[in-house]
């Protein structure tokens, strides 16, 4: 064990444990937010592990997660749009989302400083930008990114009611 893997262990035990609890219990909206935070917590941990093991090739894992993690959240935001909007539009999760984004940015900055100016550093920066931007966008999508405002959500609900009436 070195400092990097120890940090990753602590971050994973705390962050992934908390988001797992959030995803397994509570109202639907909070579960979806927790799912988004889980990928935002895991990607920096993968970067830390890559540094801790001294294997730059492992950065690819964090890259793929930074790309596809938000896409997974978009899947839920898209296909649960109606139910998420029905859930009382609780705008919670803003604080944790920003905290996790700051943590991801901090990890990337520290790793960049350690790597020094090189293509590897730019790759880390790309991962960091994709990670932070992706998760902020995904959390935005969860809180009403699909069917913006009440208009479209109301329209969807109306259509559902209509098809219920037909059925």
């Amino acid at each position, binding site marked *: 064990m070195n400092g990097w893997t120890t940090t990753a262990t602590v971050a994973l035990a705390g962050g992934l444990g908390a988001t797992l609890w959030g995803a397994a219990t509570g109202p639907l909206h909070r579960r979806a937010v927790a799912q988004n935070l889980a990928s935002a917590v895991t990607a920096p941990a993968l970067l830390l592990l890559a540094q801790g093991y001294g294997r*730059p*090739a492992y950065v690819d894992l964090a*890259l793929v997660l930074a790309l596809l993690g938000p896409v997974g959240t978009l899947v839920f935001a898209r296909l649960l749009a109606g139910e998420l909007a029905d859930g009382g539009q609780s705008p919670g999760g803003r604080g944790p989302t920003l905290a996790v984004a700051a943590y991801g940015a901090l990890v990337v900055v520290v790793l960049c400083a350690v790597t020094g100016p090189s*293509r590897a550093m*730019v*790759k880390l920066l*790309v991962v960091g930008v994709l990670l932070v931007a992706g998760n902020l966008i995904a959390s935005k999508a969860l809180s009403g990114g699909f069917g913006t405002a009440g208009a479209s959500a109301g329209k969807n609900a109306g259509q559902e009611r209509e098809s219920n009436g037909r059925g």
Partner: protein
Amino acid sequence: MRPWRAVRASGEVTVWWAALFALWLVLISTVDPLELLVGAAVSLLGALAARAGRRAVHDE
């Protein structure tokens, strides 16, 4: 205006190609001619996908 549209289309693809090729250079570890060749081809594919995606969303 057909010629103007062609210029704009090729401009869009070129800009995307350059950006994606830069991304490829960042991703790879060792640089050699074959890497550059494959990177150029892959970036072209990505640039065409970017343009196709943008057109599919915006040009109704």
